[in-house]
């Protein structure tokens, strides 16, 4: 049955691609059965993307958890990974079928556009279809091979050796991507493929035993998934940032690779990968929550509580870097077309971004809330309870700043009250970039601080530095060194920055040096806190570095950004990067300290002792994430305004206008509803086919 779906899906997609390439097109737009083409394509594409994101995220998720189980030797992680993989097969088939439907709608409604795309991307479309076979193979291998490979029996030694060989050679070769031996590409293309191929090669080192082989299969499943996503991404990103065309005739003149490696390809890919990870985590969390709510025994409740916790953890890990991935993508959009960028942040979509801020803010807020409620199941967490309200306040104030628009809606009376001006004399400042940057950073720090409190709840025994081995010290020093390099190097680059390179007059160099000096001070603080840590003042060290980061990122660079905006606005993006780098360094160093600071007392969390509202929090997170993805899809597509391919192929149909935010919410809600309900159906279907595994007993530490 499942294989039938899968076969049909792949067959449909491939055949339709050929049909689309071959069909003679005599019209630009068509109406079919009275459907609104724009909305139909929107609907199908978004649904396909939701399922695609789910299908791509689940394997990442499963492999990470399986790997954790493999390393820690705890069986329950392995079972969890298996449970998630079980959801995959039906979802995979439906995704493929939807992909086919999408292509069909595109050919049907937008024939000449589809032909245009096929002319350029025809070969990659074929390649795309071929990748599916690899994906299908590894999916089968990963899922059906699970039970058979679920032991540590060693593999034949020639496989081991061969694996090591391929791993070593491949890793070295993949470094070639980083250094540009396989061609120089702009932006993050080289690092991206370096990581991709490094992962591909390094996976061969796992070929030690049967479980390792299975993990290897899982990684390759993900690699194929990523490759599929990247191929499809290139089409979408090309529509936003076409390359290689003649600037007079506006005709595509390049090769397939020119079109694929367009400026937004990799930024979009990175953003999507983190987005997918967060999405997968939150969907899995919602799944666990529903199971929790419907559970009929404490054992089940404990299991699903734990599952929800793990899923949420993964989701938050994906969520934390998302603002930065988004910032990177946005920056590339700006660099590629300032016009598109400005339309995004200051034009038609400024309000959509306010909504996005509400949703993302909600994600952070509810993630925090889940952690806070989660403290209830940890003995010893009471002592941190008092901090919750301050964290809450910090997140809320940041959120308030984040969603305050520059150009706020006013009634006529309010406009009159301000003498006819459309800007509030004071609140307008909250709507500008520096304020938003400070707010986002504060949200992340607060979420992180909440997380620290959470994991510290049952780790209450301090370890003196003397009792750590050499490795621990080396790791701490390495982390400190990494942070110093990260911060210091960027500080140095700012210090040396020539104002002319930003089209600024020479006297603005002072702005650069001030920021650079701040980063240098940050390096000093890193040294100081590391020294304190080695003097057994670990908590103080953490406190000092966290405090300094908050001061520097939020309270210094935040207001300073306004000055920069007035005097040297091109430098504003460097300010944002400085903030990001300091924040990153803070997360790295403080987390490293945290690992070595306390010993886990192993006071067991009382899994399952969670109030119902915490489970609704997980569900809320899933819903918010779904809405957010739909909204981002709308922005991505809407940014092209009335162009199919931005600046190249104009959308002359009557649906070329940018719909209102209301239309967007209605559409996104409808698609999300269909998707979430469909998801329930998929869970149910996959549940049908499974033999019921025994509900795992809590905390059986079973060595594999």
């Amino acid at each position, binding site marked *: 049955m499942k294989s039938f779906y899968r076969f049909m899906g792949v067959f449909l997609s491939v055949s339709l691609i050929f049909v689309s390439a071959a069909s003679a097109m005599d019209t630009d737009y068509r109406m079919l059965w009275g459907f609104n083409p724009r909305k139909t394509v929107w609907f199908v594409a978004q649904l396909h993307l939701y399922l695609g994101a789910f299908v791509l995220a689940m394997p990442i998720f499963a492999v990470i958890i399986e790997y954790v189980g493999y390393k820690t030797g705890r069986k329950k992680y392995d079972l969890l990974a298996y449970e998630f993989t079980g959801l995959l097969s039906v979802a995979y088939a439906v995704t493929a079928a939807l992909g086919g439907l999408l292509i069909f709608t595109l050919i049907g409604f937008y024939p000449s556009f589809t032909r245009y795309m096929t002319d350029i991307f025809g070969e990659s479309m074929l390649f795309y279809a071929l990748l599916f076979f690899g994906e299908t193979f590894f999916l089968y291998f990963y899922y059906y091979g699970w039970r058979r490979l679920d032991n540590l029996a060693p593999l034949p030694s020639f496989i081991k050796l061969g694996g090591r060989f391929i791993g070593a050679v491949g890793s070295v070769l993949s470094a070639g991507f980083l250094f540009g031996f396989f061609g120089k590409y702009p932006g993050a293309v080289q690092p991206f493929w370096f990581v991709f191929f490094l992962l591909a090669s390094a996976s061969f080192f796992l070929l030690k035993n049967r479980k390792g082989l299975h993990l290897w299969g899982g990684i390759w499943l993900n690699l194929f998934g990523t490759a599929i996503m990247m191929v499809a991404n290139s089409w979408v990103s090309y529509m936003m940032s076409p390359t290689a065309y003649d600037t*007079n005739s506006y005709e595509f003149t390049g090769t397939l690779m020119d079109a694929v490696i367009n400026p937004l390809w990799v930024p979009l890919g990175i953003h999507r990968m983190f987005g997918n990870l967060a999405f997968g985590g939150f969907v899995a969390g919602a799944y666990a929550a*529903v199971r929790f709510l*419907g559970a009929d025994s404490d054992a089940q409740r404990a299991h699903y509580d734990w599952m929800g916790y793990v899923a949420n953890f993964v989701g938050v890990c994906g969520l934390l870097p998302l603002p930065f991935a988004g910032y990177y993508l946005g920056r590339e959009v700006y660099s590629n077309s300032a016009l598109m960028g400005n339309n995004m942040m*200051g034009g038609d979509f400024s309000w959509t971004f306010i909504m996005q801020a509400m949703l993302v803010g909600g994600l952070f807020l509810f993630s925090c809330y889940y952690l806070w409620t989660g403290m209830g199941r940890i003995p010893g967490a009471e002592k941190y309870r008092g901090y919750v309200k301050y964290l809450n306040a910090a997140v809320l104030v940041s959120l308030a700043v984040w969603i305050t628009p520059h150009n706020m809606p006013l009634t006529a009376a309010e406009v009159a009250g301000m003498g006819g001006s459309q800007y509030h004399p004071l609140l307008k400042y909250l709507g500008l970039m520096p304020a938003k940057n400070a707010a986002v950073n504060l949200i992340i720090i607060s979420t992180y601080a909440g997380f620290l409190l959470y994991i510290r709840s049952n780790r209450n025994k301090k370890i003196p530095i003397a009792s750590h081995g050499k490795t621990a010290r080396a790791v701490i020093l390495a982390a400190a060194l990494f942070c110093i390099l990260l911060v210091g190097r960027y500080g140095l680059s700012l210090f040396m920055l020539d104002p002319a390179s*930003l089209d600024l007059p020479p006297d603005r160099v002072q702005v650069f040096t001030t920021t650079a000096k701040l980063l240098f001070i940050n390096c000093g603080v890193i040294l100081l806190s590391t020294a304190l840590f080695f003097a057994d003042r670990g908590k103080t060290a953490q406190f000092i570095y966290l405090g300094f980061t908050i001061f520097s990122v939020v309270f210094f660079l935040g207001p300073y950004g306004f000055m920069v905006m007035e005097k040297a*606005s*091109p430098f504003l993006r460097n300010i944002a990067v400085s903030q990001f780098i300091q924040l990153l360094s803070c997360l790295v160093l403080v987390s490293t300290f945290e690992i070595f600071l306390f010993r886990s007392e192993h006071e067991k969390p009382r899994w399952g002792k969670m109030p119902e509202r915490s489970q609704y929090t997980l569900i809320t997170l899933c819903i918010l994430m779904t*809405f957010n993805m739909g909204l981002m899809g709308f922005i991505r597509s809407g940014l092209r305004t009335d*162009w199919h391919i931005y600046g190249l192929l104009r959308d002359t149909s009557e649906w070329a206008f940018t719909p209102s935010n209301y239309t967007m*919410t209605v559409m996104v809600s409808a698609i999300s509803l269909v998707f979430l309900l469909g998801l329930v159906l998929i869970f149910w279907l996959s549940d049908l086919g499974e033999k019921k595994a025994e509900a795992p007993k809590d905390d059986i530490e079973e060595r594999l």
Partner: protein
Amino acid sequence: MISRKGSDMAKALTKVFLFLLVMTAMFVYVGHTITVMTGGDREQTVGEGINAGAGEKIFFGKGKCSTCHSIGEKGSGIRCPNLGIKGDIFTKPIGERAVDRAAERSAQTGREWRALDYLFECVAEPGAYVVSGFRNEMPTIYKPPIDLKPDEVKAVIMFLASMGSEIPAEDILKPTGIAREYFTKIEASVKSQNDTTGQLKLYIQGDAENGESLFWDIESKAGCAKCHSVNGAGGSVGPSLAHVGGTRTLGYIIESILKPSAEIAGGYEPVIVLTKDRKRISGTKKDDTEDHLTIGTSAGEIVTIKKSDIRKWKVLKKSIMPGNFGEILTVQELHDIIAYLLTLT
């Protein structure tokens, strides 16, 4: 599992579903509120004519200038220079600033620059002399994706000039000197873009003279003048083509010849009439009064029929212009006619 312990799970699912509906409703409510607050559905404002008012509309609408430039306190763009008075840096409005900037340009290039020249340069070649403290990142507004037409560019310049300068409108309408050079550049760019869009560029190789004779010779295969007029001469069944080359894109012209029904010019709705004596007359509706219907037939005649003589009549979706030019004309003849039409500016 769901089926096994149905009741618990079903209850949980129902609750979660209701919760989902509530969340969705909230989301839609926010979208609705925001849309209402921000003035409903978006509309593209288009300015009419070449004047400062139209320029202002383009500035804040189609031209998307306001996403980067503010004017004093109006607008929220900050990436590019404010064009009004703002802060310590912008103490003069753009029109006035142009005078100073033009003087600086004169000193740099050794040519005599006027404020007008500077404004044209800003638009035609934004990177030539960037305001210090700002990046050279202004797009070429007369190329895609903004794609302003030369007249729209003039309107925008007129709007800019209206803020603090005394440049007479005629100077902008008919630019001279350096401004003329830049304007020519804009026109050339727009023209080359129009003429070479996609596969259509094939068609410019026609012979306009031959096309003209095909157009006017009623006996020829084309015989356009039967129905269409140019400067008063020709038939009046179809729309006048006097300025078709200057006002319509090449793509539109080709489409109108090969697929006449794709878009029918306003005021030329095709009608078909069945008279009481069983005669069918088709043509374009010229006039429709209470007792008369006047139509121009595809043969090029104007016929007035009494309503009392009509059994039935209706407006068609299909143009009365013959749709078979693609078949009866040779490619060369088609190119010739198009080449002629393009001369009608």
